[in-house]
Structure formats: C-alpha cells, structure tokens
C-alpha cells in the first residue's frame, strides 16, 4: 500500500512540475511587449497553493523552493525574495491541510486569500525597506485580487481534469502533516 502511494506521489509531482513549466513557458512567450494596464492572476502561485492545500504530498518543499527561485531568476524579480515568501505560505497552508478537509470550502478559500494578501504585502514591504524600485501599487493589488479570484477556478479545473481533490481522511501521507 505504501509503495502504491509513493508511486502515486511521484506521478503527481511530475504532473505538477509539467504544469508549472507550461505556465512559465506561456508567460515567457514574446507576446506582451507593451506595458500592461492590468495584470492577470499569478497562475503559478495559484496552482501551487491549490496543490498544497489539496495534495500537499505532490508539492514537496524542495520543489517549491527550487521552482520559485528559478522563476525569480527567469522573470527578473529580486532573486530569492518571492521564493522565500511562497515557501513560508506553503508551509503555513500545509499545516492546515487537515482543517481544510473537514471544513467548508469558504474557509479554505479565506485562508488562502489571507495568505496571498500577506505575501503580496510582505513583498512590497521588504522591497520598500531595501529601497528597490516598486511596481505600481494598482497593478500589484489588481494581480493579488485576480489571483485570489482564480483560486476556486483553478481548484475546480484541477479537480475536473486531474482529479486533484482534498485528501480524504484514510489517505497515507508520507511527508505532509498528520493524516
């Protein structure tokens, strides 16, 4: 039983990684060379929080750290800052996966939304402290709201297409919290 679970985890990890790379690839396509007046949701962050709150075993911590550090490098962000914040956010959510299972979806969404708001504000705060140029506030807040709005959509899409649902009580977790 444990072997089957482990194997399923590896497949899940591969799927998550492939999805993440597809999102990065689409973002890098040279289609948007005009400055945007509004920013779409940060899809990579959305799928990461969906996966962490639903199938934490498929998103091991090293994967999150490596992936977001790479994205920091690729997308010209301050390297390491966003990766750290997302890492802390995923740890925060990972510890609450059990709670999500027994409570309504609204609770899960609210927790994730607060996490995303905290990450956005912390990012701006750190950039302010170290006196780095900031993106326009409206753009950042717009992206934050859209990312939060995208959470149920991505969660539903992941459930319908990939069967990513909240882990049930009997499931064996290798590296997550208590089952």
């Amino acid at each position, binding site marked *: 039983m444990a072997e089957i679970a482990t194997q399923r985890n590896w497949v899940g990890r591969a799927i998550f990684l492939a999805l993440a790379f597809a999102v990065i690839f689409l973002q*890098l*396509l040279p289609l948007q060379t*005009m400055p945007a007046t509004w920013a779409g949701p940060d899809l990579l962050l959305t799928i990461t929080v969906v996966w962490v709150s639903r199938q934490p075993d498929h998103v091991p911590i090293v994967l999150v750290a490596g992936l977001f550090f790479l994205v920091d490098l690729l997308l010209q962000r301050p390297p390491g800052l966003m990766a750290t914040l997302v*890492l802390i956010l995923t740890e925060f959510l990972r510890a609450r996966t059990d709670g999500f299972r027994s409570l309504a979806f609204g609770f899960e969404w609210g927790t994730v939304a607060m996490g995303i708001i905290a990450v956005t504000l912390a990012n701006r705060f750190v950039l302010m402290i170290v006196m780095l140029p900031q993106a326009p506030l409206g*753009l950042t807040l717009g992206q934050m709201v859209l990312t939060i709005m995208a959470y149920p959509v991505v969660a539903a899409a992941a459930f319908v297409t990939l069967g990513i649902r909240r882990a049930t009580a009997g499931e064996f977790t290798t590296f997550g919290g208590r089952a």
Partner: protein
Amino acid sequence: MARDRQNREDYVRPIRRLLVGLLVLALMGVFVLWRIDSPRVERVRAAVIDGIVPNLTWAMAPVTSMANLIADFQSYQALSEQNRDLRRELQQMRAWREAALQLEQENAKLLDLNNVQLDPNFTFITGVVLTDSGSPFRQSVLLNVGARDGILDGWPTMDGIGLIGRISGVGQNTSRVLLLTDTSSRIPVVIQPSGQRAILAGDNTIYPPIDFLDNPDLIRPGDRVVTSGDGGMFPGDLLVGQVALGNDRRLRVRLAADYERLEFLRVLRSTPAETITDPGTLIIPPQQMFGPALPAAALANPAGTDG
C-alpha cells in the same frame, strides 16, 4: 503500522523543520547577496537564462506565430475601417514625403559643404526577440545575440526608427534589453528646439514621463526628444520620440519605436567615451611666452645701454 507512522513522524518532523529553516535562510541569503553585490548575482541570472531559454526556442516560435496569426485574424474584422484611415494617412504622407525629399537634398548639400564624417564605428548587430519579461511588472525582452557576438552591457538598442532600450545583462548566447518603459530605466535626453536636458524615467506605462526638467515652460507637446549622450555611456542624437502631455498634466514622451511588435532589434555598437585621466595637461596650456621675443642683442648684453 500506526506505531510505525508515529515513530516516523517523531524523527521526520525536526528534520523537516530544519530543512524549511535552511531553505528560507539560503533564499534570503541570495536575496541579501543580490542587494549588496548585484552584478555578481545578475551574471548568474544571465547564465541561467542563457542555459534555459535558447532550448525553448523550437517550441516558442510556432506558438508565438500561431498567437500572432490569431491576433492578425481578429484585426481583419477592422480591415475596412483601417483601410479608410490608411488612405487618409497616405494623403498626408504624400505631402510629408515631398517635404522630406526637399529636406534630404538640402541636408545632403549642407553635409557636403561641412565635409561631415559620420562616426565610422557606428555599426549595429541585429537580434531577434526570444522572450519578453514574462511579468507585467518588468519591461524587458531577451535577444538571441550575446557575448559571443560581442555585445556589451549598456549598448543602446533600436528598432528601425527609435530607441527601444539598453542592453542590461549579457549571457553567452542571449542578452537582455531593458526597455525605456521599465521602472528602472533612466536615459539622459535633450528636447530638441529648446535644447533642454532632462531624464526619461520609465514608469511601466507606454508614455514614460520626463524628469528633472529645468524649465517646463519652454517645452510644448510635439517637440522632438533625442538622447543627449550625457554621462558618456550612451551615444547622443538617437531619436526617442515626441513630447506629449499626459492625462495627469505631466510631460511624457510618445516613443517613436513601435513597442507593439518587437521582433528584430538593432544593437548599436557604441564606443566608450574617452576618459580623461590627466586633467592638468588638458586644461593648462603648454608653458609659452606671450608677446614678441626679446631681441638677440638684448639677451647677449643685458646690462648694455641702447645706442
């Protein structure tokens, strides 16, 4: 089995906590290092991008052209409207062409009269845009030319008409162009009829504002903006755009380059400005005597009396 799990968690949990702590420390360490010693980390970043992005080109090219095809198809709907506008524009352009031809002749004549030598070092390398910045908060593109082609940091980049940005970050096969619209882009410019110097400061909009302007009253919308070459790291007289008055009553620049479709960009080889290392020899003229020289007789017999 339950006891197994219990045991497992007992030793997994502290290790896990340690792992989280180490990862956070490492990532914040990189961030702090980047803030302190940016060029070193930026070189690493350029090397990483250099290693990854060129491998994706085979997949990116078809997807990009497909997306552009769809965009083109959508624009067919507005075709007749566009056609009418173009006709009207063509009418105006004919008049301008006439004026341009006359000016060209005049210009050639004047250049001939002055015997002007344009800078022979002013050649360019053309690169293809590989990717954009991938984020709405950063305005930059990646070109497929790099250190291999002799690209250096700070070189200006243009499309056919106007300035696009400057090279910022060079990998072996790729280089990044920081567009004029990025929030960290600052370019010294001069505004043409009045000759006022200012800084073009990108702010993530398509119309970057003009900063540090001495006397805004001398500027009016429509004035030409060109690079000034101040600071010595950027050549002068590259066309940037025209002054426009923004909705917020700030003076902004309507860029001459077409930011809508950046595909082929020219990187100008700009020669480094001459550095002055020895101010003394430059400013003070060589010691020499002014006025007529003393007659030889007076030198031979300084105490003698005139006849």
